[in-house]
Protein backbone atom coordinates (compact mmCIF):
# COMPACT_ATOMS: atom_id res chain seq x y z
CA UNK A 1 0.00 0.00 0.00
CA UNK A 2 1.20 3.49 -0.81
CA UNK A 3 1.15 4.85 2.65
CA UNK A 4 2.27 8.34 1.75
CA UNK A 5 -0.48 9.10 -0.72
CA UNK A 6 -2.90 7.45 1.62
CA UNK A 7 -1.97 9.73 4.48
CA UNK A 8 -2.11 12.84 2.33
CA UNK A 9 -5.57 11.88 1.18
CA UNK A 10 -6.51 11.59 4.81
CA UNK A 11 -5.30 15.09 5.52
CA UNK A 12 -7.32 16.79 2.81
CA UNK A 13 -10.38 14.64 3.19
CA UNK A 14 -12.02 17.09 5.56
CA UNK A 15 -12.30 19.70 2.84
CA UNK A 16 -12.95 17.39 -0.06
CA UNK A 17 -16.03 15.58 1.11
CA UNK A 18 -19.19 16.72 -0.57
CA UNK A 19 -22.06 17.84 1.59
CA UNK A 20 -24.78 15.27 1.89
CA UNK A 21 -28.35 16.28 2.22
CA UNK A 22 -31.23 17.62 0.23
CA UNK A 23 -31.11 21.13 -1.20
CA UNK A 24 -33.82 23.47 0.08
CA UNK A 25 -36.75 24.42 -2.12
CA UNK A 26 -37.39 28.10 -2.92
CA UNK A 27 -40.21 28.11 -0.42
CA UNK A 28 -37.93 26.77 2.27
CA UNK A 29 -35.22 29.30 1.41
CA UNK A 30 -37.75 32.07 1.69
CA UNK A 31 -39.00 30.76 5.01
CA UNK A 32 -35.49 30.51 6.33
CA UNK A 33 -34.48 33.97 5.21
CA UNK A 34 -37.48 35.66 6.81
CA UNK A 35 -38.40 34.38 10.22
CA UNK A 36 -41.53 35.86 11.68
CA UNK A 37 -40.80 37.68 14.93
CA UNK A 38 -43.75 37.36 17.34
CA UNK A 39 -44.93 40.53 19.07
CA UNK A 40 -42.88 41.42 22.10
CA UNK A 41 -44.74 41.40 25.39
CA UNK A 42 -46.13 44.43 27.13
CA UNK A 43 -47.47 45.11 30.59
CA UNK A 44 -50.53 42.98 31.36
CA UNK A 45 -49.86 40.34 28.69
CA UNK A 46 -50.31 36.68 29.62
CA UNK A 47 -47.74 33.87 29.54
CA UNK A 48 -49.04 30.30 29.51
CA UNK A 49 -47.04 27.65 31.35
CA UNK A 50 -47.17 24.02 30.23
CA UNK A 51 -45.19 20.81 30.63
CA UNK A 52 -44.94 19.11 27.23
CA UNK A 53 -42.23 16.67 28.36
CA UNK A 54 -41.41 15.77 31.98
CA UNK A 55 -43.84 16.31 34.86
CA UNK A 56 -43.74 19.16 37.31
CA UNK A 57 -45.97 20.21 40.19
CA UNK A 58 -47.76 23.51 40.58
CA UNK A 59 -45.74 24.17 43.72
CA UNK A 60 -42.48 23.78 41.80
CA UNK A 61 -43.44 26.52 39.34
CA UNK A 62 -44.44 29.03 42.05
CA UNK A 63 -41.06 30.87 42.01
CA UNK A 64 -41.39 31.30 38.24
CA UNK A 65 -44.96 32.56 38.55
CA UNK A 66 -44.02 35.13 41.19
CA UNK A 67 -41.07 36.34 39.19
CA UNK A 68 -43.05 36.63 35.94
CA UNK A 69 -45.79 38.53 37.75
CA UNK A 70 -43.16 40.93 39.06
CA UNK A 71 -42.39 41.73 35.40
CA UNK A 72 -45.93 43.06 35.01
CA UNK A 73 -47.15 39.96 33.19
CA UNK A 74 -49.97 37.56 33.96
CA UNK A 75 -49.64 33.80 34.13
CA UNK A 76 -52.04 31.15 32.88
CA UNK A 77 -51.28 27.74 34.32
CA UNK A 78 -51.80 25.05 31.72
CA UNK A 79 -53.76 21.90 32.46
CA UNK A 80 -50.68 19.67 32.20
CA UNK A 81 -49.02 21.30 35.21
CA UNK A 82 -49.39 18.90 38.12
CA UNK A 83 -50.43 16.03 35.86
CA UNK A 84 -48.26 12.96 35.77
CA UNK A 85 -48.01 9.87 33.63
CA UNK A 86 -44.82 8.18 34.82
CA UNK A 87 -41.97 10.47 33.74
CA UNK A 88 -44.29 12.63 31.64
CA UNK A 89 -46.40 15.67 32.54
CA UNK A 90 -49.56 13.76 31.74
CA UNK A 91 -50.34 11.35 28.93
CA UNK A 92 -49.37 12.29 25.38
CA UNK A 93 -52.96 13.36 24.80
CA UNK A 94 -53.09 15.47 27.97
CA UNK A 95 -49.83 17.22 27.14
CA UNK A 96 -50.85 17.73 23.52
CA UNK A 97 -54.25 19.15 24.47
CA UNK A 98 -52.71 21.62 26.90
CA UNK A 99 -50.08 22.79 24.44
CA UNK A 100 -52.65 23.08 21.66
CA UNK A 101 -54.98 25.15 23.83
CA UNK A 102 -52.18 27.56 24.69
CA UNK A 103 -51.22 27.79 21.01
CA UNK A 104 -54.81 28.53 20.04
CA UNK A 105 -55.73 30.90 22.90
CA UNK A 106 -55.44 34.46 21.53
CA UNK A 107 -55.06 35.90 25.04
CA UNK A 108 -51.87 33.91 25.60
CA UNK A 109 -48.97 35.90 24.17
CA UNK A 110 -46.13 33.51 25.02
CA UNK A 111 -45.77 29.87 26.10
CA UNK A 112 -43.16 28.96 28.67
CA UNK A 113 -42.32 25.26 28.92
CA UNK A 114 -42.02 24.44 32.60
CA UNK A 115 -39.20 21.93 32.12
CA UNK A 116 -37.59 19.59 29.62
CA UNK A 117 -36.92 15.91 30.14
CA UNK A 118 -38.20 13.79 27.31
CA UNK A 119 -41.43 13.80 25.43
CA UNK A 120 -41.91 16.64 22.96
CA UNK A 121 -41.21 14.51 19.93
CA UNK A 122 -44.16 12.31 20.92
CA UNK A 123 -46.50 15.31 20.39
CA UNK A 124 -44.94 17.35 17.63
CA UNK A 125 -46.68 15.69 14.68
CA UNK A 126 -50.08 15.91 16.38
CA UNK A 127 -49.90 19.67 17.02
CA UNK A 128 -51.76 22.07 14.74
CA UNK A 129 -49.71 25.22 14.17
CA UNK A 130 -52.23 27.10 12.02
CA UNK A 131 -53.24 29.48 14.84
CA UNK A 132 -49.58 30.08 15.67
CA UNK A 133 -48.91 30.96 12.03
CA UNK A 134 -51.70 33.51 11.93
CA UNK A 135 -50.99 34.81 15.44
CA UNK A 136 -47.33 34.15 16.23
CA UNK A 137 -46.34 34.03 19.88
CA UNK A 138 -43.09 33.36 21.70
CA UNK A 139 -42.36 29.81 22.73
CA UNK A 140 -39.74 29.45 25.44
CA UNK A 141 -37.58 26.57 26.64
CA UNK A 142 -34.54 24.40 25.91
CA UNK A 143 -33.18 20.85 26.12
CA UNK A 144 -36.05 18.60 24.96
CA UNK A 145 -37.81 21.76 23.72
CA UNK A 146 -35.10 21.89 21.01
CA UNK A 147 -37.55 19.70 19.06
CA UNK A 148 -39.89 22.66 18.87
CA UNK A 149 -37.24 25.28 18.11
CA UNK A 150 -36.00 23.18 15.21
CA UNK A 151 -39.50 22.37 13.99
CA UNK A 152 -40.60 26.01 14.08
CA UNK A 153 -37.46 27.15 12.28
CA UNK A 154 -37.63 24.49 9.60
CA UNK A 155 -41.32 24.24 8.90
CA UNK A 156 -42.96 27.52 9.91
CA UNK A 157 -40.25 30.14 10.22
CA UNK A 158 -41.19 31.65 13.56
CA UNK A 159 -38.59 32.90 16.03
CA UNK A 160 -38.52 31.30 19.50
CA UNK A 161 -36.61 31.74 22.75
CA UNK A 162 -34.04 29.20 23.91
CA UNK A 163 -33.66 29.74 27.64
CA UNK A 164 -34.02 28.44 31.15
CA UNK A 165 -37.43 27.15 32.20
CA UNK A 166 -39.55 27.22 35.35
CA UNK A 167 -37.43 24.61 37.10
CA UNK A 168 -34.41 26.96 36.99
CA UNK A 169 -36.05 29.95 38.68
CA UNK A 170 -34.46 30.38 42.13
CA UNK A 171 -36.77 29.53 45.05
CA UNK A 172 -35.76 32.62 46.96
CA UNK A 173 -34.98 35.54 44.66
CA UNK A 174 -33.39 37.50 47.52
CA UNK A 175 -30.78 34.79 48.02
CA UNK A 176 -30.16 34.00 44.35
CA UNK A 177 -26.67 34.25 42.88
CA UNK A 178 -26.07 37.12 40.44
CA UNK A 179 -25.73 34.70 37.51
CA UNK A 180 -29.11 33.17 38.31
CA UNK A 181 -30.71 36.60 38.39
CA UNK A 182 -29.00 37.74 35.19
CA UNK A 183 -29.99 34.65 33.24
CA UNK A 184 -33.61 34.71 34.39
CA UNK A 185 -33.87 38.44 33.64
CA UNK A 186 -32.50 37.75 30.17
CA UNK A 187 -35.77 35.89 29.48
CA UNK A 188 -37.71 39.00 30.49
CA UNK A 189 -35.48 41.19 28.33
CA UNK A 190 -35.88 38.89 25.33
CA UNK A 191 -39.66 38.84 25.73
CA UNK A 192 -39.85 42.61 26.06
CA UNK A 193 -37.89 43.19 22.87
CA UNK A 194 -34.51 44.22 24.20
CA UNK A 195 -31.67 43.80 21.71
CA UNK A 196 -29.66 40.88 23.08
CA UNK A 197 -25.91 41.02 23.46
CA UNK A 198 -23.71 38.51 25.24
CA UNK A 199 -20.03 38.01 25.86
CA UNK A 200 -18.33 34.66 26.20
CA UNK A 201 -15.09 34.09 28.11
CA UNK A 202 -11.90 33.93 26.05
CA UNK A 203 -10.84 30.48 25.02
CA UNK A 204 -7.54 29.82 23.29
CA UNK A 205 -9.22 27.18 21.12
CA UNK A 206 -11.55 29.74 19.55
CA UNK A 207 -11.27 30.43 15.83
CA UNK A 208 -11.39 34.14 15.07
CA UNK A 209 -13.71 35.81 12.65
CA UNK A 210 -16.97 37.65 12.23
CA UNK A 211 -20.21 36.10 11.05
CA UNK A 212 -23.72 37.29 10.49
CA UNK A 213 -26.64 34.95 10.13
CA UNK A 214 -29.77 33.54 11.64
CA UNK A 215 -29.15 31.96 15.04
CA UNK A 216 -30.35 28.35 15.38
CA UNK A 217 -29.47 25.42 17.58
CA UNK A 218 -30.04 23.77 20.91
CA UNK A 219 -29.37 20.43 22.49
CA UNK A 220 -27.04 18.40 20.30
CA UNK A 221 -28.52 14.99 21.07
CA UNK A 222 -31.99 16.28 20.33
CA UNK A 223 -30.82 17.86 17.08
CA UNK A 224 -29.28 14.54 16.03
CA UNK A 225 -32.53 12.72 16.82
CA UNK A 226 -34.37 14.99 14.37
CA UNK A 227 -32.12 14.13 11.42
CA UNK A 228 -34.12 12.88 8.46
CA UNK A 229 -37.42 14.14 9.87
CA UNK A 230 -39.42 17.15 8.77
CA UNK A 231 -38.18 18.99 11.89
CA UNK A 232 -34.55 18.51 10.85
CA UNK A 233 -32.72 21.82 11.24
CA UNK A 234 -31.15 23.31 8.14
CA UNK A 235 -27.97 25.20 8.93
CA UNK A 236 -26.73 26.78 5.68
CA UNK A 237 -25.56 30.38 6.25
CA UNK A 238 -26.69 30.22 9.86
CA UNK A 239 -24.94 30.56 13.20
CA UNK A 240 -25.38 27.22 14.94
CA UNK A 241 -25.16 26.81 18.72
CA UNK A 242 -25.02 23.44 20.44
CA UNK A 243 -24.89 22.25 24.04
CA UNK A 244 -25.34 18.94 25.81
CA UNK A 245 -25.21 17.23 29.17
CA UNK A 246 -24.46 13.79 30.55
CA UNK A 247 -22.94 12.36 27.37
CA UNK A 248 -19.74 10.36 26.99
CA UNK A 249 -17.00 11.84 24.83
CA UNK A 250 -17.43 9.06 22.28
CA UNK A 251 -21.11 9.93 22.02
CA UNK A 252 -20.33 13.63 21.56
CA UNK A 253 -17.84 12.63 18.88
CA UNK A 254 -20.48 10.52 17.15
CA UNK A 255 -23.00 13.37 17.26
CA UNK A 256 -20.56 15.80 15.67
CA UNK A 257 -19.93 13.18 12.98
CA UNK A 258 -23.67 13.10 12.40
CA UNK A 259 -23.72 16.88 11.96
CA UNK A 260 -20.79 16.68 9.58
CA UNK A 261 -21.93 13.66 7.60
CA UNK A 262 -25.44 15.03 7.20
CA UNK A 263 -24.03 18.25 5.74
CA UNK A 264 -24.79 20.54 8.68
CA UNK A 265 -21.27 21.87 9.30
CA UNK A 266 -19.96 22.70 5.86
CA UNK A 267 -21.92 25.86 5.08
CA UNK A 268 -22.30 27.46 8.48
CA UNK A 269 -21.80 31.17 9.05
CA UNK A 270 -20.44 30.44 12.53
CA UNK A 271 -20.40 27.85 15.28
CA UNK A 272 -21.08 28.43 18.96
CA UNK A 273 -20.19 25.64 21.34
CA UNK A 274 -21.96 26.05 24.66
CA UNK A 275 -21.64 24.00 27.81
CA UNK A 276 -20.96 20.29 27.51
CA UNK A 277 -21.20 18.31 30.73
CA UNK A 278 -19.19 15.24 29.89
CA UNK A 279 -19.97 11.91 31.49
CA UNK A 280 -16.77 10.25 32.65
CA UNK A 281 -15.92 6.84 31.26
CA UNK A 282 -16.55 4.14 33.85
CA UNK A 283 -13.32 2.43 32.95
CA UNK A 284 -10.25 4.67 33.20
CA UNK A 285 -8.40 2.34 30.80
CA UNK A 286 -10.94 3.22 28.15
CA UNK A 287 -9.65 6.75 27.74
CA UNK A 288 -11.22 8.33 24.66
CA UNK A 289 -8.02 10.21 23.88
CA UNK A 290 -9.58 13.40 22.53
CA UNK A 291 -11.12 16.32 24.35
CA UNK A 292 -14.13 18.37 23.30
CA UNK A 293 -12.03 20.94 21.45
CA UNK A 294 -10.26 18.29 19.40
CA UNK A 295 -13.56 16.54 18.69
CA UNK A 296 -15.07 19.76 17.35
CA UNK A 297 -12.08 21.18 15.53
CA UNK A 298 -11.21 18.01 13.61
CA UNK A 299 -14.70 18.07 12.08
CA UNK A 300 -14.47 21.69 10.93
CA UNK A 301 -10.76 22.10 10.14
CA UNK A 302 -11.62 22.43 6.46
CA UNK A 303 -13.86 25.43 6.97
CA UNK A 304 -13.05 29.04 7.77
CA UNK A 305 -15.98 30.31 9.82
CA UNK A 306 -15.58 31.62 13.39
CA UNK A 307 -15.96 29.19 16.27
CA UNK A 308 -16.24 29.93 19.96
CA UNK A 309 -16.25 27.64 22.97
CA UNK A 310 -17.67 28.07 26.49
CA UNK A 311 -20.54 30.22 25.31
CA UNK A 312 -23.01 30.76 28.18
CA UNK A 313 -25.71 28.38 26.95
CA UNK A 314 -26.36 24.91 28.28
CA UNK A 315 -27.49 22.79 31.20
CA UNK A 316 -25.76 25.12 33.64
CA UNK A 317 -26.25 28.30 35.64
CA UNK A 318 -24.90 30.54 32.89
CA UNK A 319 -27.59 29.78 30.38
CA UNK A 320 -28.82 32.99 28.80
CA UNK A 321 -31.88 33.53 26.63
CA UNK A 322 -31.14 33.27 22.91
CA UNK A 323 -33.55 34.19 20.14
CA UNK A 324 -33.65 31.31 17.66
CA UNK A 325 -34.53 32.31 14.12
CA UNK A 326 -33.32 35.88 14.62
CA UNK A 327 -30.28 37.36 12.86
CA UNK A 328 -27.19 37.77 14.99
CA UNK A 329 -23.63 38.87 14.60
CA UNK A 330 -20.93 36.65 16.10
CA UNK A 331 -17.57 38.30 16.63
CA UNK A 332 -14.69 36.17 17.84
CA UNK A 333 -11.40 38.00 18.33
CA UNK A 334 -8.39 37.49 20.54
CA UNK A 335 -9.78 40.04 22.96
CA UNK A 336 -13.43 39.11 23.16
CA UNK A 337 -16.31 37.02 21.92
CA UNK A 338 -19.64 38.72 21.44
CA UNK A 339 -22.98 37.64 20.08
CA UNK A 340 -25.23 40.54 19.18
CA UNK A 341 -28.76 40.51 17.92
CA UNK A 342 -29.22 42.42 14.66
CA UNK A 343 -32.44 44.39 14.62
Amino acid at each position, binding site marked *: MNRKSFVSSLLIAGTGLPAFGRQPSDEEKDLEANSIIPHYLKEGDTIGITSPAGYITEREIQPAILQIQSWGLRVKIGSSIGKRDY*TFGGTDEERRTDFQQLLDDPTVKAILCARGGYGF*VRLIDQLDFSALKSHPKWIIGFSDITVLHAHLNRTIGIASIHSKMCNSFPDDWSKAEPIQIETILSIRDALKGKRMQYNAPLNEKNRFGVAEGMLVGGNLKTLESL*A*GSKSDLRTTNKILFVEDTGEYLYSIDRMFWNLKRSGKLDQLAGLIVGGFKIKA*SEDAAEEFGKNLYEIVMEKISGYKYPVCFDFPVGHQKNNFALKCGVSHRLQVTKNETTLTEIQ
Partner: protein
Amino acid sequence: MKTPPYLQKGDIIGITCPAGYMAKEKAQSCITVLQQWGYEVLVGKTLGSKSKTYFSGTDEERLIEFQAMLDAPEVKAILCGRGGYGVGRIIDHLDFTAFKKNPKWIIGFSDITILHAHINRNFKIATLHSSMAAAFNDGGYKNKYVQSIKAALEGAKASYTCKPHSLNHTGKAKAELVGGNLALIAHLIGSKSDYQTKGKILFLEDVGEQHYNIDRMMHQLKRSGKLNDLAALIIGGFTDMQDTERSFGKNVYQLIHELLSDYKYPVCFGFPVSHGKENLALKVGGSYQLTVTSDAVALIEQ
Protein backbone atom coordinates in the same frame (compact mmCIF):
# COMPACT_ATOMS: atom_id res chain seq x y z
CA MET B 1 -27.47 -7.44 -4.79
CA LYS B 2 -24.09 -9.13 -5.06
CA THR B 3 -23.17 -12.00 -2.76
CA PRO B 4 -19.45 -12.38 -2.07
CA PRO B 5 -18.07 -15.86 -2.80
CA TYR B 6 -18.62 -18.34 0.02
CA LEU B 7 -15.50 -19.61 1.71
CA GLN B 8 -13.51 -22.69 0.74
CA LYS B 9 -11.17 -24.68 2.96
CA GLY B 10 -7.84 -22.92 3.12
CA ASP B 11 -9.27 -19.47 2.46
CA ILE B 12 -7.93 -16.59 4.51
CA ILE B 13 -10.07 -14.69 7.04
CA GLY B 14 -8.57 -11.42 8.24
CA ILE B 15 -9.26 -10.24 11.78
CA THR B 16 -9.09 -6.52 12.44
CA CYS B 17 -10.40 -4.14 15.10
CA PRO B 18 -11.76 -1.03 13.38
CA ALA B 19 -13.25 0.39 16.60
CA GLY B 20 -12.47 -0.47 20.25
CA TYR B 21 -9.36 -2.10 21.69
CA MET B 22 -9.25 -5.87 22.14
CA ALA B 23 -6.55 -7.89 23.88
CA LYS B 24 -5.21 -10.65 21.68
CA GLU B 25 -5.93 -13.40 24.21
CA LYS B 26 -9.62 -12.47 24.05
CA ALA B 27 -9.60 -13.47 20.39
CA GLN B 28 -7.45 -16.60 20.73
CA SER B 29 -10.38 -19.04 20.83
CA CYS B 30 -11.82 -17.40 17.76
CA ILE B 31 -8.52 -17.72 15.87
CA THR B 32 -8.13 -21.38 16.88
CA VAL B 33 -11.71 -22.28 15.99
CA LEU B 34 -11.56 -20.53 12.61
CA GLN B 35 -8.46 -22.61 11.89
CA GLN B 36 -10.32 -25.75 13.00
CA TRP B 37 -13.06 -24.79 10.58
CA GLY B 38 -10.43 -25.07 7.86
CA TYR B 39 -9.51 -21.44 7.33
CA GLU B 40 -6.26 -19.57 7.60
CA VAL B 41 -6.35 -16.53 9.82
CA LEU B 42 -4.55 -13.26 9.16
CA VAL B 43 -4.32 -11.40 12.44
CA GLY B 44 -4.15 -7.64 12.03
CA LYS B 45 -1.90 -5.49 14.21
CA THR B 46 -4.89 -3.66 15.62
CA LEU B 47 -5.80 -6.80 17.57
CA GLY B 48 -3.83 -6.69 20.80
CA SER B 49 -2.11 -3.46 19.75
CA LYS B 50 -0.07 -1.21 22.01
CA SER B 51 -2.82 1.41 22.00
CA LYS B 52 -3.35 3.04 25.37
CA THR B 53 -6.65 4.67 24.46
CA TYR B 54 -10.18 3.38 24.04
CA PHE B 55 -9.44 2.61 20.40
CA SER B 56 -7.50 -0.34 19.00
CA GLY B 57 -5.18 2.13 17.32
CA THR B 58 -5.18 5.63 15.88
CA ASP B 59 -7.74 6.41 13.19
CA GLU B 60 -4.96 6.05 10.65
CA GLU B 61 -3.78 2.69 11.98
CA ARG B 62 -7.29 1.26 12.00
CA LEU B 63 -8.00 2.69 8.57
CA ILE B 64 -4.78 1.43 6.97
CA GLU B 65 -5.33 -2.07 8.27
CA PHE B 66 -8.96 -2.28 7.22
CA GLN B 67 -8.05 -0.85 3.82
CA ALA B 68 -5.25 -3.37 3.35
CA MET B 69 -7.62 -6.24 4.15
CA LEU B 70 -10.25 -4.83 1.79
CA ASP B 71 -7.66 -4.58 -0.97
CA ALA B 72 -5.78 -7.87 -0.52
CA PRO B 73 -7.31 -10.35 -3.01
CA GLU B 74 -6.26 -13.36 -0.93
CA VAL B 75 -8.29 -12.20 2.08
CA LYS B 76 -11.75 -13.68 1.48
CA ALA B 77 -13.50 -12.38 4.58
CA ILE B 78 -12.88 -9.72 7.22
CA LEU B 79 -14.03 -10.51 10.73
CA CYS B 80 -14.14 -7.50 13.02
CA GLY B 81 -12.66 -8.51 16.37
CA ARG B 82 -15.09 -6.36 18.30
CA GLY B 83 -17.28 -3.29 18.03
CA GLY B 84 -17.33 -0.46 20.56
CA TYR B 85 -17.00 2.88 18.88
CA GLY B 86 -14.89 4.02 15.96
CA VAL B 87 -15.96 2.86 12.49
CA GLY B 88 -17.76 6.18 11.97
CA ARG B 89 -14.42 7.97 12.31
CA ILE B 90 -12.89 6.16 9.33
CA ILE B 91 -15.80 5.23 7.07
CA ASP B 92 -15.48 8.23 4.75
CA HIS B 93 -11.79 7.52 4.21
CA LEU B 94 -12.16 3.88 3.20
CA ASP B 95 -11.75 3.18 -0.51
CA PHE B 96 -14.11 0.43 -1.65
CA THR B 97 -12.89 0.27 -5.27
CA ALA B 98 -11.16 -3.11 -4.95
CA PHE B 99 -13.93 -4.44 -2.71
CA LYS B 100 -16.57 -3.58 -5.30
CA LYS B 101 -14.63 -5.52 -7.96
CA ASN B 102 -13.92 -8.46 -5.70
CA PRO B 103 -16.50 -8.55 -2.93
CA LYS B 104 -15.64 -10.38 0.27
CA TRP B 105 -17.56 -11.01 3.46
CA ILE B 106 -17.47 -8.25 6.08
CA ILE B 107 -18.47 -9.74 9.43
CA GLY B 108 -19.53 -8.16 12.70
CA PHE B 109 -22.28 -6.18 14.44
CA SER B 110 -22.90 -3.29 16.86
CA ASP B 111 -20.57 -0.46 15.71
CA ILE B 112 -19.98 -2.52 12.54
CA THR B 113 -23.58 -1.63 11.60
CA ILE B 114 -22.02 1.43 9.97
CA LEU B 115 -20.22 -0.84 7.48
CA HIS B 116 -23.34 -2.93 6.85
CA ALA B 117 -25.43 0.16 6.15
CA HIS B 118 -22.77 1.96 4.14
CA ILE B 119 -22.08 -1.06 1.93
CA ASN B 120 -25.77 -1.87 1.52
CA ARG B 121 -26.67 1.68 0.59
CA ASN B 122 -23.79 2.41 -1.71
CA PHE B 123 -22.55 -0.86 -3.21
CA LYS B 124 -25.38 -3.41 -2.90
CA ILE B 125 -23.04 -6.12 -1.68
CA ALA B 126 -24.19 -8.56 1.02
CA THR B 127 -22.45 -8.51 4.43
CA LEU B 128 -22.71 -10.73 7.48
CA HIS B 129 -24.23 -9.41 10.71
CA SER B 130 -23.09 -11.74 13.47
CA SER B 131 -21.25 -12.13 16.74
CA MET B 132 -17.54 -11.34 16.79
CA ALA B 133 -14.39 -12.80 18.32
CA ALA B 134 -15.40 -12.75 22.00
CA ALA B 135 -18.44 -14.94 21.33
CA PHE B 136 -16.09 -17.87 20.67
CA ASN B 137 -14.70 -17.78 24.23
CA ASP B 138 -15.55 -20.16 27.10
CA GLY B 139 -16.88 -22.83 24.76
CA GLY B 140 -19.19 -20.34 23.07
CA TYR B 141 -18.01 -21.56 19.66
CA LYS B 142 -20.08 -24.71 20.19
CA ASN B 143 -23.40 -22.90 20.48
CA LYS B 144 -25.73 -22.56 17.53
CA TYR B 145 -25.22 -18.83 17.33
CA VAL B 146 -21.49 -19.01 16.64
CA GLN B 147 -22.05 -22.09 14.50
CA SER B 148 -24.44 -20.02 12.38
CA ILE B 149 -21.43 -17.90 11.32
CA LYS B 150 -19.70 -21.06 10.04
CA ALA B 151 -22.81 -22.17 8.15
CA ALA B 152 -23.27 -18.71 6.61
CA LEU B 153 -19.66 -18.51 5.41
CA GLU B 154 -19.92 -21.99 3.89
CA GLY B 155 -22.96 -20.90 1.91
CA ALA B 156 -25.67 -22.85 3.74
CA LYS B 157 -29.07 -21.19 3.50
CA ALA B 158 -30.23 -20.16 6.96
CA SER B 159 -33.47 -21.46 8.37
CA TYR B 160 -34.19 -19.89 11.74
CA THR B 161 -37.12 -20.06 14.10
CA CYS B 162 -37.95 -18.19 17.26
CA LYS B 163 -40.59 -18.32 19.96
CA PRO B 164 -43.86 -16.49 19.37
CA HIS B 165 -44.41 -13.28 21.32
CA SER B 166 -47.73 -11.81 22.42
CA LEU B 167 -46.98 -8.49 20.69
CA ASN B 168 -46.21 -10.02 17.28
CA HIS B 169 -48.14 -8.95 14.20
CA THR B 170 -48.81 -12.04 12.12
CA GLY B 171 -48.13 -12.20 8.40
CA LYS B 172 -45.65 -13.24 5.78
CA ALA B 173 -43.06 -11.25 3.83
CA LYS B 174 -40.32 -12.09 1.37
CA ALA B 175 -37.75 -9.35 0.87
CA GLU B 176 -34.22 -8.12 1.27
CA LEU B 177 -33.02 -8.04 4.88
CA VAL B 178 -31.31 -4.96 6.34
CA GLY B 179 -30.68 -3.83 9.89
CA GLY B 180 -28.40 -3.81 12.89
CA ASN B 181 -27.92 -1.68 15.96
CA LEU B 182 -30.72 0.85 16.44
CA ALA B 183 -28.49 3.62 17.81
CA LEU B 184 -26.19 3.40 14.80
CA ILE B 185 -29.03 3.18 12.28
CA ALA B 186 -30.57 6.30 13.80
CA HIS B 187 -27.19 8.02 13.92
CA LEU B 188 -26.61 7.42 10.19
CA ILE B 189 -29.87 9.07 9.14
CA GLY B 190 -29.18 11.98 6.84
CA SER B 191 -25.69 10.73 5.92
CA LYS B 192 -24.66 8.91 2.79
CA SER B 193 -24.53 5.65 4.78
CA ASP B 194 -28.23 5.92 5.65
CA TYR B 195 -30.16 2.68 5.03
CA GLN B 196 -33.04 2.76 2.59
CA THR B 197 -35.70 0.52 4.08
CA LYS B 198 -38.61 0.71 1.65
CA GLY B 199 -39.90 -2.74 0.78
CA LYS B 200 -37.32 -4.44 3.02
CA ILE B 201 -37.32 -6.53 6.17
CA LEU B 202 -35.66 -4.42 8.89
CA PHE B 203 -34.11 -5.93 12.01
CA LEU B 204 -33.11 -3.93 15.09
CA GLU B 205 -31.30 -4.64 18.34
CA ASP B 206 -29.64 -2.51 21.01
CA VAL B 207 -27.85 -2.61 24.32
CA GLY B 208 -27.48 -0.47 27.42
CA GLU B 209 -29.86 2.33 26.45
CA GLN B 210 -32.40 4.23 28.49
CA HIS B 211 -36.04 3.48 27.65
CA TYR B 212 -36.69 7.09 26.69
CA ASN B 213 -33.75 7.01 24.33
CA ILE B 214 -35.07 3.91 22.57
CA ASP B 215 -38.40 5.72 22.28
CA ARG B 216 -36.67 8.78 20.83
CA MET B 217 -34.71 6.72 18.31
CA MET B 218 -37.80 4.79 17.25
CA HIS B 219 -39.61 8.09 16.77
CA GLN B 220 -36.71 9.26 14.64
CA LEU B 221 -36.99 6.15 12.46
CA LYS B 222 -40.72 6.69 12.17
CA ARG B 223 -40.52 10.43 11.49
CA SER B 224 -37.80 9.96 8.87
CA GLY B 225 -40.03 7.51 7.03
CA LYS B 226 -37.96 4.40 7.77
CA LEU B 227 -40.90 2.42 9.20
CA ASN B 228 -43.59 3.44 6.73
CA ASP B 229 -43.05 1.05 3.86
CA LEU B 230 -41.32 -1.94 5.38
CA ALA B 231 -42.03 -5.47 4.22
CA ALA B 232 -41.60 -6.62 7.82
CA LEU B 233 -39.90 -5.69 11.08
CA ILE B 234 -37.81 -7.94 13.30
CA ILE B 235 -37.20 -6.71 16.84
CA GLY B 236 -34.23 -8.50 18.36
CA GLY B 237 -32.86 -8.34 21.88
CA PHE B 238 -32.76 -5.05 23.72
CA THR B 239 -30.40 -6.06 26.49
CA ASP B 240 -29.28 -4.22 29.64
CA MET B 241 -31.96 -1.58 29.22
CA GLN B 242 -32.10 1.12 31.87
CA ASP B 243 -35.02 3.12 33.15
CA THR B 244 -34.83 6.65 34.46
CA GLU B 245 -35.41 7.50 38.11
CA ARG B 246 -38.82 8.74 37.00
CA SER B 247 -39.92 5.58 35.20
CA PHE B 248 -40.79 5.69 31.51
CA GLY B 249 -43.81 3.53 32.27
CA LYS B 250 -43.43 1.07 29.41
CA ASN B 251 -40.87 -1.57 28.62
CA VAL B 252 -38.99 -1.43 25.35
CA TYR B 253 -41.12 -3.93 23.47
CA GLN B 254 -44.29 -2.14 24.60
CA LEU B 255 -43.06 1.25 23.48
CA ILE B 256 -41.97 -0.11 20.10
CA HIS B 257 -45.25 -1.95 19.66
CA GLU B 258 -47.18 1.22 20.41
CA LEU B 259 -45.40 3.04 17.57
CA LEU B 260 -46.37 0.39 15.04
CA SER B 261 -50.13 0.59 15.37
CA ASP B 262 -50.51 2.24 11.95
CA TYR B 263 -48.68 -0.50 10.08
CA LYS B 264 -49.99 -3.76 8.71
CA TYR B 265 -46.75 -5.60 7.99
CA PRO B 266 -45.60 -8.59 10.04
CA VAL B 267 -43.58 -7.82 13.17
CA CYS B 268 -41.84 -10.23 15.50
CA PHE B 269 -40.38 -9.49 18.90
CA GLY B 270 -37.59 -11.34 20.65
CA PHE B 271 -35.77 -12.60 17.58
CA PRO B 272 -32.32 -13.95 18.51
CA VAL B 273 -30.25 -11.06 17.22
CA SER B 274 -28.71 -9.15 20.11
CA HIS B 275 -25.74 -8.17 22.24
CA GLY B 276 -26.41 -11.29 24.29
CA LYS B 277 -25.41 -14.83 23.43
CA GLU B 278 -28.51 -15.18 21.23
CA ASN B 279 -27.22 -13.66 18.04
CA LEU B 280 -27.82 -15.56 14.81
CA ALA B 281 -25.81 -14.71 11.71
CA LEU B 282 -27.91 -12.65 9.27
CA LYS B 283 -26.96 -11.58 5.77
CA VAL B 284 -27.58 -7.87 5.33
CA GLY B 285 -28.68 -7.60 1.72
CA GLY B 286 -29.71 -11.26 1.64
CA SER B 287 -33.19 -12.35 0.62
CA TYR B 288 -35.33 -13.90 3.34
CA GLN B 289 -38.87 -14.98 4.00
CA LEU B 290 -40.31 -14.09 7.38
CA THR B 291 -43.42 -15.93 8.51
CA VAL B 292 -45.11 -14.85 11.73
CA THR B 293 -48.09 -16.87 12.91
CA SER B 294 -49.73 -16.94 16.30
CA ASP B 295 -47.66 -19.92 17.38
CA ALA B 296 -44.42 -19.72 15.37
CA VAL B 297 -41.87 -17.42 13.76
CA ALA B 298 -39.61 -18.53 10.92
CA LEU B 299 -36.96 -16.64 8.98
CA ILE B 300 -35.89 -18.62 5.93
CA GLU B 301 -33.13 -17.49 3.61
CA GLN B 302 -34.15 -17.69 -0.05
